């Protein structure tokens, strides 16, 4: 089933492209398709493949290192003679550096190197922009020296609030956009076609990535050999290598970057940042290793964020809930870069509409604050929060169940299946409050309960011409290697499982190594593409190595390779003699087998994206405004589930991050200064253990048919829906939407108050 496509004596030399039949899809909808396998590729796994290891509860292969404290992250590197570096940062939000006096810092005890990162006259773009880099014997000495640096600025007026930036939309006291929509006769007609319509403004605040390992790098310039060795907390060893080589002005083949363990990234750790580049410049200056890891305040203020946004949407639907118009636009506040503040709404609900009835627009407004970076499903949690919220408002106007409205408009067969499976499992009918805003228990009139849901989509199944190394050793142990970094997703475990499955051996025999640029290049850990990009190459490498092992064994036994069959970890000679994998390895000779697997382009897949939906239930204390999430369920298309337990962990983690985003997280800025006030974990609230309810994840294994494995990444997909589902649950409990994240008690109380006054108005009008 998983044999190499061999022809004659030349296993890889098959230049015929014939059709291969495979079954793709999922339990609820599948079909047989013919795919064209590329030269040398192996037969793909499909819906009918029976696995021994793939999809089971294999333990995380680097878990022992992590639970014993032996796992060394960049932050944990201690090298002989290592110095400690830091960056002195701008104390003003906008202006130019007038002068910098580092003379006292240079003379301070323990200081070895002081570098300017900005010359006189250069701009500082936000509070926290780098100006000077210092390396000293200890971190305390570096901090002492930093206090002695004198920086004078030519200060300019700043804008840290994107709502006040030039070009910002006008809003009313409640934050709703009051500017007129761009004119469109078609849109007006589409809106008029509906039985009901909604026009509402939603908004979100800045969320910081808050990876627990801060950004930073340990850089070691080896003057004797002219080599630069670097340990970096990064999501992209390849990209950072190029940047480091450039900063050091050395050829790229003299640079090696390690990221064996990375303490989270969530999208913030692609570029090396000034902290990486100046770690390199400092080690060059000092000719000693330099560790430059950021502190928590820098982490909150200088390493990117999920930007704030205002989103306005108007929709209309007919009496069956079928959308007639979908008009969405958003304004993002991505900081000084002025880009990357995009939001993304679930436009698939409007797929049936004419172009004129479907409009999406976005505008970014620059401010003098830290620049946005990609964060787990960039743009989606924001846009889905707004759009799914507005759809719930529409359902309410139509007195429709929100789920029914989704089912009417969602054209995805996979999500239709997921909606029904999720609703059944979650108990949607019982949990959804059919009388929004009314307490369930008359004895506890202050306790409001509700349920909400949201769809999700993420569209990536990987690609790129990546290679993976597979080595079989004489002692029966196996290696799989790729330079891509495992940032906590479980990449190492996935690679080990794929190779073990292909070789028919136990996972414990396979050692997976990632995060070292000495190995074949891998993708950056972004867009949920890492696993789907390299998994097919890992399987291919193992298949090639297996073929080599068969050839070597045949030679040792004095038989033809074709007389040997290999199944389930055992070789058979002419269907008779049986030999284990380990015994076969003993006979293969002293040289390890080393093969590189290739990543072939994707076939035409069942679908090119990953679908899901989520359900949330909340309790709201109407007296205090405090929201408690009481239950959540994620139904998640996972492509081929490789490591089941780890995949579940990632989905549950996305729910927890989503609870945090929905209820707690926001950057608070003193706009007079442009300075973040809550840049620490005391005041920037992240959901804790006591905030987490029962969480469940249903993994829907989909044979997506994209390649010989059919994996999907799980960073993004489950991170899209949580905040939307929670907000909708709160709206169901309150009987009125909050329309802003985070859903803090003050916002809840305000929403309840507005509901009360609306009711009073209605009653007054009725008389």
């Amino acid at each position, binding site marked *: 089933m998983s044999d190499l496509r061999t022809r004659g004596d030349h296993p890889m030399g098959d230049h015929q492209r014939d059709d291969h039949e495979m079954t793709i899809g999922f339990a609820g909808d599948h079909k047989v398709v013919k795919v064209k396998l590329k030269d040398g590729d192996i037969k793909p796994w499909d819906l009918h493949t029976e696995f021994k290891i793939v999809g089971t509860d294999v333990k995380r292969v680097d878990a022992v290192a992590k639970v*014993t404290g032996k796992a060394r992250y960049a932050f944990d590197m201690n090298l002989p003679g290592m110095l400690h570096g830091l960056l002195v940062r701008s104390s003003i939000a906008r202006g130019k550096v007038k002068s910098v006096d580092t003379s006292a810092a240079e003379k301070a005890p323990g200081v070895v190197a002081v570098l300017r990162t900005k010359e006189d006259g250069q701009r500082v773009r936000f509070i926290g922009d780098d100006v000077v880099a210092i390396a000293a014997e200890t971190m305390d000495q570096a901090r002492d020296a930093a206090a002695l640096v004198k920086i004078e600025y030519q200060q300019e007026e700043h804008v840290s609030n994107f709502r006040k930036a030039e070009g910002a939309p006008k809003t009313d006291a409640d934050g709703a956009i009051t500017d007129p929509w761009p004119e469109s006769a078609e849109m007006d007609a589409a809106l008029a076609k509906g039985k009901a319509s909604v026009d509402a403004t939603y908004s979100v605040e800045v969320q910081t990535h808050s990876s627990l390992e801060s950004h930073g790098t340990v850089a070691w310039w080896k003057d004797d050999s002219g080599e630069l060795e670097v340990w970096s907390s990064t999501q992209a060893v390849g990209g950072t290598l190029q940047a480091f080589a450039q900063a050091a002005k050395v050829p790229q083949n003299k640079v090696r970057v390690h990221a064996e363990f990375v303490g989270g990234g969530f999208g913030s750790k692609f570029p090396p940042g000034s902290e990486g580049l100046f770690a390199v410049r400092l080690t060059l200056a000092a000719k000693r290793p330099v560790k430059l890891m950021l502190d928590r305040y820098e982490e909150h203020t200088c390493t990117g964020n999920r930007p704030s946004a205002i989103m306005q949407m108007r929709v209309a639907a007919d009496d069956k809930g079928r959308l007639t118009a979908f008009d969405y636009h958003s304004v993002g506040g991505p900081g000084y870069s002025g880009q990357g503040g995009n939001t993304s709404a679930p436009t698939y609900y409007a797929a049936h509409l004419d172009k004129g009835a479907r409009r999406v627009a976005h505008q970014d407004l620059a401010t003098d604050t830290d620049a946005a970076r990609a964060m787990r499903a960039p743009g989606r949690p924001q846009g889905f929060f707004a759009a799914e919220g507005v759809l719930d408002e529409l359902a309410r106007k139509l007195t429709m169940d929100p789920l029914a409205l989704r089912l009417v408009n969602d054209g995805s067969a996979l999500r239709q299946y997921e909606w029904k499976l999720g609703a059944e499992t979650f108990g949607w009918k019982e949990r959804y409050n059919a009388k929004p805003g009314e307490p369930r228990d008359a004895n506890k009139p202050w306790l409001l309960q509700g349920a909400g849901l949201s769809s999700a989509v993420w569209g990536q199944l990987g690609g790129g011409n990546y290679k993976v190394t597979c080595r079989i050793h004489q002692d029966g142990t196996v290696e799989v290697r790729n330079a891509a970094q495992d940032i906590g997703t479980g990449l190492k475990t996935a690679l080990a499982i794929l190779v073990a499955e292909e070789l028919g051996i136990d996972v414990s025999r396979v050692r997976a190594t990632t995060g070292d640029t000495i190995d074949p290049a891998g993708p950056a850990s972004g867009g949920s593409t890492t696993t789907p990009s390299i998994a097919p190459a890992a399987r291919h490498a193992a298949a090639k190595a297996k073929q080599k092992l068969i050839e070597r064994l045949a030679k040792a036994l004095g038989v033809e390779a074709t007389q040997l069959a290999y199944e389930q970890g055992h070789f058979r000679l002419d269907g008779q003699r049986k030999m284990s994998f380990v015994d076969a390895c003993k006979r293969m000779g002293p040289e390890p087998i080393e093969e590189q697997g290739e990543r072939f382009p994707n076939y035409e897949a069942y679908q090119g994206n990953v679908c899901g939906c989520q359900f949330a239930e909340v309790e709201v204390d109407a007296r205090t405004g405090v929201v408690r999430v009481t239950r959540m369920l994620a139904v998640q298309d996972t492509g081929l589930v490789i490591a089941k337990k780890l995949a579940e*962990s990632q989905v*549950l*983690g996305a729910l927890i991050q989503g609870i945090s985003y929905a209820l707690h997280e926001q950057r608070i800025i003193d706009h007079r200064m442009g300075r973040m006030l809550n840049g620490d974990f005391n005041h920037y609230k992240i959901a804790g253990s006591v905030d987490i309810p029962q969480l469940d994840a249903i993994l829907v294994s989909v044979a997506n048919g994209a390649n010989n494995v059919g994996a999907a990444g799980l960073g993004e997909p489950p991170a899209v829906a949580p905040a939307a589902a929670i907000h909708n649950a709160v709206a169901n409990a309150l009987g009125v939407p909050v329309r802003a994240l985070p859903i803090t008690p003050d916002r809840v109380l305000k929403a309840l108050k507005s509901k009360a006054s609306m009711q009073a108005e209605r009653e007054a009008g009725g008389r």
Partner: protein
Amino acid sequence: MHSTPHAPLGADFSRRSFLKGASVAAVAGTSAAAADTAATSRVTRFGPGLHEITLQVNGAARKTQVEPRTTLLDALRNQLDLTGTKQICDRGACGGCTVLLDGVPINACMTLALDVEGRELKTIEGLANGDDLHPLQRTFIECDALQCGFCTPGMIMSGVACLEAGATKSREQIAGCISGNICRCGTYTRVVDAIQMAAKQGGGR
């Protein structure tokens, strides 16, 4: 934020910023060296500069030199190369640097190295007995109670204290024990699973 009790420290200062630049610190004798001096003057002068101390870490006496302002966290990580104890917030808000001081969980970032001389410290590196993992380390692996792994050592140390205190009667009680530990990947549910499983298997050692 920490619902787990903190060990009383010998001195009532706890942040290096308090001592930064100060050359004199009055300390009621908590260490052998301090006690000797205290007998004559009742005041011990530390710093500026380095001071030799011996820390009892994971059953071994480890001699090192620290400044008065050096936190226990920095001493463990930078001087003793015990980097399993993580530096995350450095302000006592995340629990990533949780170690056991005389069996009680503390934040190593909020503790001065000088203050814990002569007292028994246990870090994540001292939990397993060679390859024989602590039951909680085993259940963490079993339950996949970790992702990136950066909060994991602190979580486990808080979890060990939770087990040893027998505070495992309900999931809520366990969640309370680790409420001072922040995880960004979102492992809380499975961390509670792991502590609960270890408790069912007989708790600590």
